[in-house]
């Protein structure tokens, strides 16, 4: 069934076959397989096409660092994901996968023509190729780049999956469950500390899964692993999390984890989240992430079948899969020799071991000889052949720097190892320094900024015994730093494989290096030649080389390519590696779904939607809603067949003619209480408050210290020492914060306390000539006559049986009241008023009608008619300033030179010459519409509506020197190239004398 599967070998369940598809063809693997291991078991190396040249590509690694084998996965309707690593996606029945960057098929791809046009795609090709001619940009270059750029295809359907998130706190977080991570975990866990161990793989064990040659404490590797995991799992203070990637390491030991929960399941429970983002706060972090093997850089190193030797080890031991029958090893590190031995022992005919080094440990030479494996030391590789799979490799001896005669060796896999790079991406996220270690030939962790320990191969250590000991020590160190005591266990290891190697640039060749396709970055198709070209063209900093060539800028962040690129760049620059420096790793460690980051915040739960106590009534009565800050507010209440325009006209008319009702519950409300309340109000607001009597209210204007309008609202004096302050809907939290700031930090001597009561009260505004007729019969405890309860009054009384704070105020210019009742009664009161208002054809209205009615009266909306640069004088409400007050917030700024200067933008009214023209809010205003572009803009329209009461359009605008332009005609250019003319007027369009407020 699986021609390359070794029966009985590996950790997959060979009794449980699993069927999945790749590019429409059904394949069989086993439970525990990844897509990559299952395809390899079937002899399929070709898994994708290169991003730039569309060259055939095979799987290179066995882990999350995989640059080539990126596939699209379909897990059911709507569940398509591009760029999934075939090496990480576990198979299950019905999983459907596809290759990427190919057309029409993976085996025959038209885009491979790019491979012949490679001159176009050299380093900096974006900057060079697409510069000229300019007219080509829109029609040729941009479409080309857009088609070529990006990996895979983006999903087109809404993601139906759930995503979850959690916070987690622990003493010790261990990233990586290889031997060093497990040794650290055992030490920490046995002390009783709370321990979390995470690993991105589907099962824990790390290198022990792919290098099971050792015995630990008398048990074989997998036996020891099982015992260890059993012990850890049995401890209540330990949490083991597989399929969980530490994606980012943030301040003060907060580590982000992305846990994959369902991508490996064929039957997903309905409410199961696909992924969960964990925000872990750890006392100590231990990074035991191992090391990543580096490719060798030589011509044709990207051919399918050319892969990492360590990956071949993993496929062999963990999955029971031979990556070929006739593999050849190409290495500069001892570790790959063991790959050769293990493959030979598993029945492969190893074509040869080619090592660039001349000094090989004798034990390795003997072991090769014992297995009859040809060894070619001091050799280079100069080419490979084979269209969709490697068929042979061309190797040459190198003597004294000279490349000798070539020899071609047939093979069906080339297993390369250019050394190992400690995996320190997360450590880099903390801004910990990486120092070059000449002995280990690697960057190793230096100065630490967080409570972190690095263990194992991440510190350049090699061999199971060394990393177990180091892990145990890291665990003990972490406990010590937590103030706990612990002894690190020791481990007896036999059969360990230690080793060493060298780093190197691209391999020497006897051919023209200019025509070699020796890839450094497989995912972004960057070659050694590109890096040398970048240096020749003047890039000196490694950060510039990176951006010019895009080396390391693909989704794998250069996990395989960074060190090779750096080595080649430093050679081209004639500098040592540490002098050239490193590029920066940034979160996330591996590509992370938007879903995981969004968590629960999607759909209706995307953001808080605040609803008033009357929202449910509005919903039942088919209101249209609009968002205002976090609130949703009833916008208008359309009747059958009405559009917004018709509904708003009707609501306006009904309110002006008889009676309208409006849910004003979102208005901010602040209780300002205490013996010094009036002094506090005098200091905060522009208006004078001392003489405001109990039971009276006043329009209040709040400035910033810079003199610009921040907020406004009606403020009632409930007692000598108690004010009921209202704020704008969007300003409520901001105003309270500003008040608290002054109270706590500038005037702590004042005895005043502030409490938000926005949500304690439901607020209903009643407006129209019949407002009093509606309310008076429902009110108990307050004489509603104009004499007893004049405009700008407030009283505590009962309305329709509910305790209330009743204001007589108006934001419409009509006789008006605002009734505040405890929020739970809001809807009941609304319904009672609707019922009682029937004789007056009471009309519920929404925010749009409220806006029109207030604009007809020239009442401003903070944030619409003002924008943070408008003073009270600019807005025409200088009357709200208490001129006699010695000080208030913002007063000093009102006499600053630029505030009193001529030519400030001022709020004026606009009446269009054509009364049917409704100007567009935000439209710019000019003096002469025929002036050449760019025109001099002297202001903009802030509010603009159709006024049903006036039978024409009205608008407000801020215009330079606006008050001096009364009667002038201004022009508002329109998007179609025309313009509209309008005359400057005052802002009060309706009932300028204010007679309607006084209706009997």
């Amino acid at each position: 069934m699986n021609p390359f599967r070794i029966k009985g070998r590996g950790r997959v369940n060979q009794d449980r076959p699993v069927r999945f598809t790749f590019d429409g063809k059904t394949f069989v693997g086993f439970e525990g397989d990844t897509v990559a291991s299952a395809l390899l078991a079937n002899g399929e190396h070709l898994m994708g096409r290169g991003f730039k040249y569309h060259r055939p590509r095979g799987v290179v690694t066995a882990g999350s660092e995989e640059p080539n084998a990126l596939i699209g996965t379909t897990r059911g309707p709507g569940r398509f994901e591009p760029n999934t690593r075939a090496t990480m996606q576990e198979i299950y029945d019905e999983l459907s996968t596809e290759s990427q960057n190919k057309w029409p098929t993976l085996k025959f791809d038209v885009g491979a023509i790019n491979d012949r046009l490679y001159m176009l795609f050299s380093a900096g090709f974006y900057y060079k190729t697409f510069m000229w001619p300019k007219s080509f940009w829109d029609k040729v270059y941009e479409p080309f780049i857009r088609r070529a750029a990006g990996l895979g295809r983006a999903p087109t359907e809404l993601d139906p999956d759930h995503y979850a998130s959690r916070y987690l706190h622990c003493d010790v977080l261990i990233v990586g469950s290889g031997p060093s991570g497990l040794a650290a975990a055992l030490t920490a866990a046995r002390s009783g500390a709370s321990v979390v161990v995470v690993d991105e793989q589907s099962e824990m064990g790390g290198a022990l899964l792919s290098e099971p040659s050792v015995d630990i404490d008398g048990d074989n590797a997998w036996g020891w692993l099982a015992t260890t995991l059993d012990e850890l799992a049995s401890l209540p203070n330990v949490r083991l999390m597989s399929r969980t990637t530490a994606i980012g390491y943030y301040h003060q030991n907060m580590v982000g984890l992305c846990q994959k929960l369902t991508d490996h399941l064929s039957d997903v429970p309905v409410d199961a989240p696909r992924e969960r983002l964990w925000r872990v706060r750890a006392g100590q972090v231990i990074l035991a992430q191992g090391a990543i093997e580096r490719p060798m850089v030589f011509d044709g190193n990207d051919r399918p079948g050319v892969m990492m030797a360590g990956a071949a080890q993993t496929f062999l031991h963990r999955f029971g899969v031979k990556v070929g029958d006739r593999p050849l090893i190409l290495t500069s590190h001892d570790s790959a020799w063991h790959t050769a031995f293990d493959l030979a022992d598993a029945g492969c005919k190893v074509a040869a071991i080619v090592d660039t080094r001349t000094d090989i440990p004798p034990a390795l030479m003997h072991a090769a000889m014992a297995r009859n494996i040809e060894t070619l030391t001091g050799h280079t590789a100069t080419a490979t052949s084979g269209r969709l799979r490697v068929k042979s490799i061309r190797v040459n001896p190198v003597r004294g720097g000279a490349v000798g005669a070539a020899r071609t060796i047939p093979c069906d896999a080339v297993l390369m190892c250019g050394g190992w790079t400690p995996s320190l991406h997360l450590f880099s996220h903390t801004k910990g320094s990486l120092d070059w270690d000449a002995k280990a030939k690697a960057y190793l962790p230096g100065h630490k900024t967080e409570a972190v320990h690095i263990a194992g191969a991440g510190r350049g250590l090699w061999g199971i015994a060394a990393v177990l000991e180091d892990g145990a020590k890291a665990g003990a160190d972490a406990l010590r730093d937590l103030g706990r005591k612990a002894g690190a266990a020791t481990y007896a290891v036999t059969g360990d494989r230690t080793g060493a190697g060298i780093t190197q640039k691209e391999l020497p060749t006897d051919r023209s290096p200019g025509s070699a396709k020796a890839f450094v970055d497989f995912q972004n198709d960057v070659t050694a030649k590109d890096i040398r070209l970048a240096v020749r063209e003047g890039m000196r900093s490694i950060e510039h080389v990176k951006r010019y060539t895009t080396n390391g800028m693909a989704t794998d962040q250069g996990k395989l390519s960074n060190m090779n690129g750096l080595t080649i760049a430093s050679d081209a620059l004639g500098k040592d590696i540490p002098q050239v420096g490193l590029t920066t790793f940034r979160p996330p460690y591996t590509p992370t779904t938007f879903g995981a980051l969004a968590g629960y915040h999607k759909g209706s739960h995307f953001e808080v939607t605040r609803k008033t106590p009357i929202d449910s009534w509005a919903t039942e009565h088919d209101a249209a809603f609009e968002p205002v800050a976090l609130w949703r507010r009833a916008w208008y209440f359309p009747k059958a067949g009405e559009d917004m325009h018709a509904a708003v006209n009707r609501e306006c008319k009904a309110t002006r003619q008889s009676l309208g009702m409006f849910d004003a519950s979102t208005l901010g409300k602040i209780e300002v209480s205490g013996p010094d309340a009036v002094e506090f109000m005098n200091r905060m607001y522009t208006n004078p408050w001392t003489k405001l009597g109990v039971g009276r209210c006043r329009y209040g204007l709040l400035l910033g210290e810079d003199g610009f309008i921040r907020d406004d609202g009606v403020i009632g004096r409930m007692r000598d020492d108690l004010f009921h302050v209202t704020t704008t809907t969007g300003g409520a939290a901001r105003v309270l914060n500003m008040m608290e700031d002054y109270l706590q930090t500038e005037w702590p001597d004042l005895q005043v306390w502030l409490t938000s009561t926005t949500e304690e009260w439901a607020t209903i505004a009643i407006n129209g000539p019949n407002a009093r007729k509606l309310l008076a019969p429902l009110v108990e405890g307050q004489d509603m006559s104009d004499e007893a309860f004049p405009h700008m009054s407030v009283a505590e009384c009962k309305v329709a049986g509910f305790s209330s704070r009743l204001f007589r105020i108006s934001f419409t210019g009509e006789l008006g009241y605002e009734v505040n009742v405890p929020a739970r009664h809001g809807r009941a009161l609304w319904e009672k008023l609707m019922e009682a208002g029937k004789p007056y054809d009471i009309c519920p209205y929404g925010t749009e009608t409220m806006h029109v009615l207030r604009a007809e009266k020239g009442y401003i909306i903070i944030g619409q008619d003002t924008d943070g640069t408008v003073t009270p004088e600019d807005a025409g409400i200088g009357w709200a300033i208490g001129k006699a007050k010695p000080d208030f917030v913002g007063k000093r700024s009102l006499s600053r030179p630029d505030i009193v200067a001529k030519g400030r933008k001022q709020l004026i009214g606009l009446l269009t010459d054509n009364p049917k023209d409704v100007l567009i809010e935000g439209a710019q205003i000019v003096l002469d519409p025929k002036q050449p572009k760019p025109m001099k803009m002297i202001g903009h329209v802030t509010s603009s509506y159709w006024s049903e009461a006036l039978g024409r359009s009205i608008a407000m605008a801020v215009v330079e020197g606006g008050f001096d332009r009364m009667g002038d005609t201004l022009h508002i250019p329109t998007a179609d190239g025309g313009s509209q003319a309008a005359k400057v007027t005052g802002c009060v369009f309706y009932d300028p004398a204010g007679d309607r407020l006084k209706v009997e």
Partner: protein
Amino acid sequence: MNAPVKSFDAVSVAVLPPVARLNLRIAPANLAVASAAFGLTLPTKIGQGVAKKGHAAWCLGPDEWLLHAPEADQAAIVADFTAARVKAPHSLTVISDREFTIAITGPRAQEFLSVACPLDLSRMAPGTAKRTLFDTAQVVLIRDADDAFRIEVWRSFFPHVSDLLDIALREFACGL
């Protein structure tokens, strides 16, 4: 408001009936006056709470206390504090309708709250309360016992918090 209790074995979520809820602000030096008015010795350390005979109080800030009492007592409490105002200035604001209270109980309650609570709840002792965030909503979190919490959330934020708890409940129940 009495929403049905939603639960599975490990966690229950229930909306509690209304309670008289008051925000008290007073200088700590005058706290004895407030304690006498409320009939409970108010705690002085932020987070601490006391409870007796249906009255409960938690210190939320240096000069701020959250008071709970049976609804029937609300008018009398307000009257008692009004009488005490001549002795010690303070602010007592009724916020009974400002918030809803949600109870989260059960053996996995603490873990359950970690879907949206950034605090290390293992450090929060029973009987304490604090203002904090739950997801993006400001709440007062009260811990009544190892396995019992209350969330007090502003009325308009309640649907958001309540929906999130429902989602989390289904997530916990499915076991993944």
